[in-house]
């Protein structure tokens, strides 16, 4: 029997504010008289969602903002009730929805451990026995008797995470909490999550935007869009699909089609007028093939003379993993420029990136490496398999390098 069953779950919200008591009474009166005049716009946050989850499954839920992920979790955690449909949960639930919801700033760390334990339904005895472990994990021994209001925000989430994950429940619900604290602590969190998931065989539901993390942790991923589950299956497949959708979305973004570039940083000295891409055959095209050349042509103007500026061109993924960067400082081709319009071309001779879509970023720095102009997501760059057979490429990995293979001896091959 599945541990979680969701049948035809639909949730509607009224748009707009709660009306005054006058309107409310009037509409109720009208309703009693049988003429429903109340036509408030309704928004379907969840639209006929159906799925079952078996015990021990680790399910990731991904989707754009507003796709209904958190609303779905709220139903599973019994925080809100469906408009229509049914949610059956067979087992105890630990909702880690936003770690630290119950952390009170006036109380000390230790007091908060007990309070949050009680809120999460952990018996006091269990907390008592796990107290050292919790404090140890949170790395807050020194501050545990200090009121939380004197903590840094990072310390607060560390505390929250440590309490929440000490709980023994059959079903764990996690919403955007994996990445808390600094990088070292994040690593620890992920390790702990993985331990909880893999060793203890719990059923886990995770909602998040860090797709790579989810892909790693989950045994199954559901993709949500506009309140419905559009895909449900193996993490790699669904995450890949989601990335593709995200790419398409960026591809179709207005700024790109209109060719307007909005820099993240702009000193006012440099303005970029146009960025163009050419493939290995010199044809203007937003992309190229694997291990082929890509030429980036940037037309820019500067309002003053620039002495030996540095230009950095790079590619990043939709989730801003900067996979590739080149700079004119390395070959030391950096002439001084007079005020006016210039064109710089940079040919990346051998793109080692796996077929996927990326985005272009460009940075201008002065000779002292002061940022003059910087923009990410300038144009989408689609890398295709090019001359390679896409089915022979491994499914994971970002970068493709040339590799030489050898076996220890000649292997006799059977001739047909």
């Amino acid at each position, binding site marked *: 029997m599945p541990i979680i069953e969701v049948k035809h779950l639909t949730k509607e*919200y009224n748009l707009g504010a*709660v009306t005054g*008591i006058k309107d409310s009474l009037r509409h109720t009166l009208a309703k009693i008289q049988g003429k429903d005049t109340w036509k408030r716009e309704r928004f379907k946050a969840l639209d006929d969602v159906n799925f079952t989850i078996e015990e021990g499954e680790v399910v990731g839920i991904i989707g754009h903002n507003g796709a209904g992920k958190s609303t779905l979790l*709220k139903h599973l*955690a*019994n*925080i*809100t*009730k469906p408009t229509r449909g049914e949610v059956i949960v067979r087992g105890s*639930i630990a*909702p880690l*929805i*936003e770690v630290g*919801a*119950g952390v*009170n700033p*006036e*109380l000390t760390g230790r*007091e908060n451990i*007990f*309070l949050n*334990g*009680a*809120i*999460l*339904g952990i*018996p*006091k005895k269990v907390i008592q026995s796990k107290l050292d472990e919790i404090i140890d994990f949170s790395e807050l021994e020194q501050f545990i008797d200090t*009121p939380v209001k004197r903590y840094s925000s990072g310390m607060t989430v560390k505390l929250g995470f440590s309490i929440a994950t000490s709980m023994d429940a059959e079903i764990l619900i996690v919403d955007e909490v994996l990445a808390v604290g600094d990088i070292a602590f994040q690593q620890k969190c992920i390790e702990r999550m993985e331990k909880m998931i893999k060793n203890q065989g719990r059923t886990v539901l995770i909602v998040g935007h860090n797709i790579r993390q989810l892909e790693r942790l989950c045994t199954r991923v559901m993709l949500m869009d506009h309140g419905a589950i559009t895909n449900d299956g193996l993490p790699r497949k669904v995450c890949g699909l989601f990335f593709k959708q995200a790419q398409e979305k960026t591809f179709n973004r207005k700024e790109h089609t209109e060719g307007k570039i909005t820099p993240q940083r702009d000193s006012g000295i440099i303005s970029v007028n146009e960025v163009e891409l050419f493939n290995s055959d010199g044809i203007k095209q937003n992309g190229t093939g694997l291990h082929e050349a890509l030429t980036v042509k940037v037309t820019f103007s500067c309002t003053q003379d620039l002495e030996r500026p540095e230009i950095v061109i790079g590619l990043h993924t939709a989730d801003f993993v900067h996979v590739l960067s080149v700079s004119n400082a390395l070959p030391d081709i950096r002439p001084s420029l007079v005020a006016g319009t210039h064109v710089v071309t940079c040919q990346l001779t051998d793109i080692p990136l796996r077929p996927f879509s990326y985005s272009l970023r460009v940075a201008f720095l002065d000779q002292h490496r002061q940022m003059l102009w910087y923009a990410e997501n300038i144009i989408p760059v689609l890398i295709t398999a090019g001359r390679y057979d896409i089915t022979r490429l491994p499914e994971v990995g970002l970068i493709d390098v040339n590799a030489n293979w050898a076996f220890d001896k000649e292997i006799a091959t059977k001739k047909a």
Partner: protein
Amino acid sequence: MSTTTSNLFAYRELIVALARKNIVVRYKQSYLGLLLAVLKPVMLMAIFTLVRSFIGIETDGTPYPILTFAALLPWIFFQESASEGVSSVTSNAALIKKIYFPREVFPLTAMVTKLVELTISFFILAGLMAYYQMMPTIYILWVPLIILYTMIIALTISFFGAAINVYYRDMSQLLPIALSLLMYGSPVIYPLSLVRKKLLDEQMAGDWSNQLYTLYTLNPLAGIIDSFQRVLLKGIPPDFNALLPGFILISVLLPISYLFFKRAENWFADII
């Protein structure tokens, strides 16, 4: 109703932890601490005693300061429990949106929090009793029951008010006003014996006197305050005739109020 009782038990640790938090948060970084809790009844007692020296209120021989203090104790406990209970759900919006546990935990926690403050006031009362050389009798055993009954009344108001307050915040503003008016309709400044004497013995309101007295005792606090004074100060059992109308009213209202709360609970997280 039985589910509330079992919830009360299952979530007792949570209620205690939340009540502890309420108290710690309220009195942390304050020099007087919990003593602040007794400031209100003591000040009111002083004012009432002063006023009484001008207008004169018959008290059946009990010293007025202790009589009014013994009335203020259950009254303030009720008033603050109900006010706190009504805003208890909205003031915990963050928790409501994130974690599920039966929502009646919040009004219940408000009661428990106020119970602690009430305990402090009892020490003052004990001091006053010692000063007036009043010995507690066996009837003091009624006190826990009276307090429990007061909590049930405060809960009846809290369940209904807290649910309304999620939709219309007016509730938490209006209730304290309504309650401070109700104080004049309760035997706080004057004893119930005075009301009884005027209405039942002297038939002051003519033919309507008996009905008026029933109407007056429909306010459950009338019976509670009177019983409280009787078992503690006078050493006599409660007057059940004064308790009955209010008790019937509450017996009818509590289930309605609770069901209303449980029904509204489903949408707390969406509306709050």
